[in-house]
């Protein structure tokens, strides 16, 4: 059954947390746990969602959940899954799920994530990507996009924010031949919900990379959070896609599939200009960003199934 606002269960497994008002990450976790069954076991490393969700005596997860060392989301997931299976106490509807931020995934947690995929452990790994280390107060991660001002990539006379490009974690994960990987955005929840359902029902390692704006770090009004999360997709700087590994797709090397192929992109400039973090970008730099988008989409449209 397709999940939508009407059919989603009333359960609120992530509730009463101390995230900023309008936090995209908390929306991602809330939505994901609604799709996974009540028997989901969640693991969260150091990061915004564990910091705002696990403050004894304010415990905001209604399901089994635990905190992990920063680098260890995937390996703790592995341990949980192995422990439940070894004892024969893993319910059929139990998804062992991790929620890690962009730094926790693409930087410090990448090694453990790679290990879990290599072992094809039966876990779901969700990266909520707010494009910087927000828990420590907006520092650059390897998923911070070009041009974004953070407290460690200041926008000054010599540099206009982050000088590196966003790391392509989705394709790095896919290169492992993982059974299932997807990208999503909290701006398009029906798409995210569908991918969560798919991921829930596949065995082996699954990975979902969901864009989750942080109004505090991105410099946009809290109320605009969802709209910005749509805008990044509409302007083509983020794409909604799926990857199915060789076993699932029957295609050697696996298969990439676009979930959304916009006929026309919304304005990159408008997307960037509405956020304080990109304020220093020159028109030339914005043109560079746009050119990067076009090159990526040319490759996507050539190589991936629409």
């Amino acid at each position, binding site marked *: 059954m397709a999940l*939508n*606002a*009407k059919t*989603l*269960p*009333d*359960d*609120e*497994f*992530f*509730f*009463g*947390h*101390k*995230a*900023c*008002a*309008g*936090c*995209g990450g*908390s*929306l991602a976790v*809330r*939505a994901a746990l609604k799709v996974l069954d*009540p028997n989901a076991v969640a693991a969260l490393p150091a990061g*915004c969602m564990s*910091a*705002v969700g696990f*403050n*004894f*005596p*304010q*415990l*905001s*997860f*209604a*399901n*089994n*959940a635990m905190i992990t060392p920063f680098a260890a989301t995937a390996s703790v997931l592995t341990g949980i899954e192995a422990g439940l299976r070894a004892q024969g106490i893993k319910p059929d509807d139990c998804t062992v799920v991790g929620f890690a931020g962009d730094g926790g995934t693409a930087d410090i947690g990448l090694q453990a994530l790679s290990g879990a995929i290599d072992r094809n452990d039966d876990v779901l790994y969700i990266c909520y990507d707010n494009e910087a280390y927000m828990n420590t107060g907006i520092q650059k991660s390897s998923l911070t996009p070009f041009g974004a001002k953070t407290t460690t990539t200041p926008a000054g006379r010599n540099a206009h924010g982050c000088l590196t490009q966003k790391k392509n974690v989705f394709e790095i994960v896919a290169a492992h031949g993982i059974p299932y990987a997807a990208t999503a955005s*909290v701006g398009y*929840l029906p798409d995210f919900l569908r991918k969560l359902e798919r991921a829930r029902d596949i065995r082996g390692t699954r990975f979902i990379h969901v864009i989750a704006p942080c*109004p*505090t770090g991105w410099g946009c*009004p*809290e*109320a*605009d*959070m*969802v*709209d910005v999360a749509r805008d990044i997709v509409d302007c083509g700087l983020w794409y909604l896609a799926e990857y199915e590994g060789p076993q699932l797709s029957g295609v050697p090397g696996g298969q990439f599939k676009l979930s959304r192929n916009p006929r026309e992109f919304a304005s990159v400039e408008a997307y960037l200009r509405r956020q304080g973090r990109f304020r220093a970008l020159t028109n030339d730099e914005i043109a560079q960003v746009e050119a990067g988008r076009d090159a990526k989409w040319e490759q996507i449209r050539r190589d991936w199934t629409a």
Partner: protein
Amino acid sequence: MIEVLWHGRGGQGAFTAARLLGAAASLDDKRYALAFPSFGPERRGAPMRAFTKIDTVQIGDRSAVSKADFVIYLDGTLLAPDWERELKPGGICLVNTADASDDPRLLAIDADGLATELLGRPIPNTVFLGALAQLADCVDRESVEEAIRQYMPAKLHEANIKVVERAIALVQQAEVVGHEEAAAGESAGQPGAAAETVTGLHRSAHSSGAHMPQLFATVPEPSAYADTTCYAAGYLTQVNAGWRNVRPVLNADACTGCLQCYLYCPDGAIFKVSGQNKAGVSVDIDLDFCKGCGVCAAACKFDALSMAPETNAKEA
């Protein structure tokens, strides 16, 4: 020692003000100052505190201030009924509100109004810095302005110095008016309201049967928890209502039951109820846990949700 306790919300600049005050007081090397925030997991919008301590000798005690000479509320909605508890005898409480007070210890300053006028945004912190320049012996207009010049980005100097000057004038005026009003025996309503009052609207009270964290009145005893870091899932002891200075208001007539507000609420504070509309479903808002982000109102295509200032909503 002069102790100043700043109440604000993450993002309002309470700590910046605490820091500027300390810098101003210690500019001339005659005084020592400490300024520090309360460190916690709470985020932007959450109530937070900052502290300034000023003395003529070095200050060894780096603990939080529990009783202060000046208690400052950068957000009037944070003012709790027991605000006096934090005031030293003879101390003054400064509150960001447009509503005057009849209590001589409570000084109301429309800092949002002043800041909006001069800065274009309701950032009230330097208004109170100006107020303290007038009220506290350890700083004056010159030292506060010098602190702004030394510790704020250059582009903010001019406007904030103007804010300080106007704030000083405002307080001078209020002192005069305050005396007159006290003499006349007039009284006005108290600004603000309790920050974390449970409204009783929490969804668990409706026993929907859904899996979700539950609010408990008590914090457990150490003997009940300290042997492990394993405790009942979803055990809550606090609401988040105090984060909010605007709240969503539902116009049930306009609601079509599309549930986009419910779907996109980052806090799960909007829940489904049966509705009179065509869809037969509508929503209600859990005001104990709504943080007032406004995502719901933005998601509503039918203008059935709007954000109303918290003070007005409470009066309504």
